[in-house]
């Protein structure tokens, strides 16, 4: 069996080239692959297209906003291109207002489903979400069973940086509670999936095959967060 286990975050992200599409999950500060994002920040890849739920927060925790602030991100694809409150002027907001970064705003369910479509080999799908709003302008509309829908296309990634709870050495993954959020979708939608493990990496056979959230066939690289790593 191919060894997927890395012992350095820097090594695990060393080959991510400039211009890549990088997916990183997280919702409400849970399930964010902060150690891998920190490593990609150190690695310095530029002109990235980043896919996340939001474009970073105001706190000092490492997230996609760290890479945005460092000028590594050319385009952000997310469900929030303005903060929930106008007082939250993040680095993304400043750069977006100055036209220093591009962005595509996608309703959250459409964002998740576009990635699932990419993972599932689906060429697109029709959704009622956004019909009658300015986000549907210019998109193909179709009435299906009496209801108007808009056509949305798949969203694949080059790399996914993932935070999971537990893995086996083959890369079968388990998540804990709301840590799951976008993680399984992004892990399956990207060509190369790199995972940081919060609890432990066990031997193959130790995880119940009926309780695997992402099959190891999707996982390329695994790394255990060391005791001095970022767990929050």
């Amino acid at each position, binding site marked *: 069996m191919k060894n997927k286990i890395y012992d350095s975050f820097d090594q695990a992200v060393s080959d991510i080239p400039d211009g890549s599409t990088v997916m990183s999950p997280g919702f*409400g500060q*849970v399930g964010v692959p902060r150690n891998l994002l920190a490593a990609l920040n150190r690695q310095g890849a530029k002109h990235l297209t980043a896919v996340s739920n939001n474009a970073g927060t105001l706190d000092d925790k490492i997230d996609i906003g760290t890479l945005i602030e460092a000028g590594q991100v050319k385009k952000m694809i997310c*469900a*929030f291109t303005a903060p929930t409150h106008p007082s939250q002027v993040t680095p993304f907001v400043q750069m977006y207002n100055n036209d220093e970064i591009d962005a595509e705003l996608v*309703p959250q*369910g459409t964002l*998740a489903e576009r990635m699932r479509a990419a993972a599932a080999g689906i060429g697109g799908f029709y959704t*009622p*979400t956004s*019909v009658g709003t300015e986000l549907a302008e210019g998109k193909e509309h179709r009435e299906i069973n009496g209801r108007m829908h808009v056509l949305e296309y798949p969203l694949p990634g080059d790399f996914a940086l993932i935070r999971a709870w537990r893995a086996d050495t083959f890369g079968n993954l388990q998540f804990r509670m709301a840590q799951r959020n976008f993680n399984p979708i992004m892990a399956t939608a990207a060509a190369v999936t790199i995972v940081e493990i919060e609890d432990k990496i066990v031997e193959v056979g130790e995880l119940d095959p009926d309780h695997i959230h992402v099959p190891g066939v999707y996982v390329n690289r695994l790394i255990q967060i060391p005791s001095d790593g970022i767990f929050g």
Partner: protein
Amino acid sequence: MSDKPKLERQAMCDRLAMEFQDEWIVNLGVGMPTLCSNYTDSSKEIIFHSENGVIGYGPLAEEGKEDKHLVNAGGQNVTAVPGMAIVHHADSFALIRGGMVDVTVMGAYEVAENGDFANWRIPTRKGGGIGGAMDLAACAKRVFIAMEHTTREGSPRLLKKCNLPVTAPSAVKLLATDLGLFEIASEGFILKEYAPGWTLEEIQAETEAKLTLATDAKEFRFR
């Protein structure tokens, strides 16, 4: 503008929560709508769904007893209750688009008399914050809104037509403001319940759209 006392946010949310029925799946938006979960009625079992894939969560966690992996849509630590289930984000929105959510309660900037509402973008600011609002507004069985009746500057928010970009057309069924409870019907806003001491004329003076007094209109109740 009248200086009579207006309704508190908790009262507005309690009133909307009184409409929740036994076994409903309820999705609460970030901010004021989360107050709906403080309303308790032991005769009903409500299943709270959060867009990050938590189905059936309990009250906010006590300080010191938080599970760092368990948050609601606002990132607040909530508690696990028996029967809770976790799915990933795509399945969480499959549940939403699939019509499983009985009601979503959201905040808004504006609501129009045809049920259009706006809560994601202000054109003077670049970008917008949609989150799951468009999916929920388009696909939940009912959309309830909790918001202040006027802007901080006193401009009306119950309008003939939304000025801001809409989140979904013809979506809102019920609206609680600090001046009362309003239903949206084919004839527009129906004033069902008014804040204590307020008259239809006084509420109309703070409203751009025409209000119709319900035949059974009464004073706002929230307990």
